[in-house]
């Protein structure tokens, strides 16, 4: 039986896995028809791609230049009053939620780490870090989500815990920072801050990444967690905001 079109194209573009590549090469050795089809496919593609060059215009420096006045990255884009208003809104909402009788927020703040998964036996260091939590944000996402810390800090840590909840929760301890959430990302404007953070992520659900200064420092996809940070005995990942993490 001859090689099918998909296999021929994949051979041409080196897109076969090693096992199928070996099998296909073996077939080619014994089949002059398929050898000719592969060579013909290569010739025809080279001709087509060569014809595309007829369309090319000179990629002049002006055409390829970065925009003269590149806008600053997202952290500086929102006006200061929008950040301030966001913080005030978050604090007001948190205060209201905290004041409600039987508030889950109050319970959460008083017992950090003591929710669903039964990881109430958090270490003393953790309690110190989150004591005096000032603000936070809870979002829910059905698709991939990013939590973006715009800058490294001179000190501070992120504690990441996986929980059975479907919510993504971010709490800030220490200094207030700007939190801006969108449908697929939460941006933490933390330049110059020394705050620490506690992040709770759904153990199940879509992939979630934490980025620090443009670099991925934590990724959760399905059951798999990818990070260079430490995992403490209570199952909390500790990300140092002052290190050069990959």
């Amino acid at each position, binding site marked *: 039986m001859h090689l099918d079109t998909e296999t021929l194209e994949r051979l041409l573009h080196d897109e076969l896995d090693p096992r199928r590549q070996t099998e296909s090469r073996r077939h080619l050795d014994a089949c002059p028809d398929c050898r000719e089809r592969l060579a013909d496919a290569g010739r025809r593609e080279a001709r*087509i791609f060569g014809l595309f060059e*007829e369309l090319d215009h000179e990629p002049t420096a002006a*055409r390829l230049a970065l925009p003269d006045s*590149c*806008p600053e990255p997202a952290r500086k884009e929102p006006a200061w009053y929008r950040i301030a208003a966001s913080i005030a809104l978050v604090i007001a909402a948190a205060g209201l939620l905290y004041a409600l009788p039987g508030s889950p927020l109050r319970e959460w703040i008083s017992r950090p780490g003591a929710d669903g998964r039964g990881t109430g036996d958090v270490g003393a260091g953790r309690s110190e870090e989150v004591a005096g939590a000032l603000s936070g944000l809870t979002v829910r996402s059905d698709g991939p989500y990013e939590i973006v810390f715009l800058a490294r800090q001179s000190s501070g840590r992120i504690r990441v815990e996986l929980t059975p909840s479907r919510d993504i929760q971010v709490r800030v301890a220490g200094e207030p920072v700007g939190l801006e959430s969108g449908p697929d990302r939460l941006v933490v404007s933390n330049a110059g801050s020394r705050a620490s953070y506690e992040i709770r992520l759904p153990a199940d659900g879509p992939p979630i990444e934490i980025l620090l200064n443009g670099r991925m420092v934590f990724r959760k996809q399905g059951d798999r967690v990818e990070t260079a940070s430490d995992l403490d005995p209570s199952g909390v990942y500790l990300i140092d905001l002052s290190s050069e993490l990959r």
Partner: protein
Amino acid sequence: MSRTFSDLVAEVHAAHSASIFRFLDRLSGDPDLAADLAQEAFVRLYRRGTLPEKPDRWLVTVALNLFRNERSKERRQRGLRAAFPDDLTPGAGPSPSDRAESRSRRAEVRSALDRLSPRDRELLLLRAEGYSYRDLADMLTINEASVGTLLARAKRSFETAYEEARRAS
């Protein structure tokens, strides 16, 4: 010394801007539009504040969406381009007959590409830029397992359209 985000974007720009411009230029037939779309994609990368895992793929996807949004305007401009093909600048270079032949071939290739479905056109042009099957599948939202078959079909369609364009001219 650690690199700033602007440094990272500049590196991405140095590595990929020529390829992204070429792809958009071939796709649109309009180098000015291609340059504008490429620049806008980089502006959006700045605004994003972080580098995606595969910046070139992200940029192409953004630029493609921008191009699709521009498509109605592009259709209006296509008529103008046909009426006033570029390369009209006089001066040194190929002889008038060579230039005429080159213009004719360019018009035939343009015509053949324009006759393809958008997916076939984008697939061929992105493959010509060397994107992997996985990248193509992600960027064009197609099944990775059938990228080879779709590519073969697109190439056949292009050959047919090109021969028709040659006969017509």
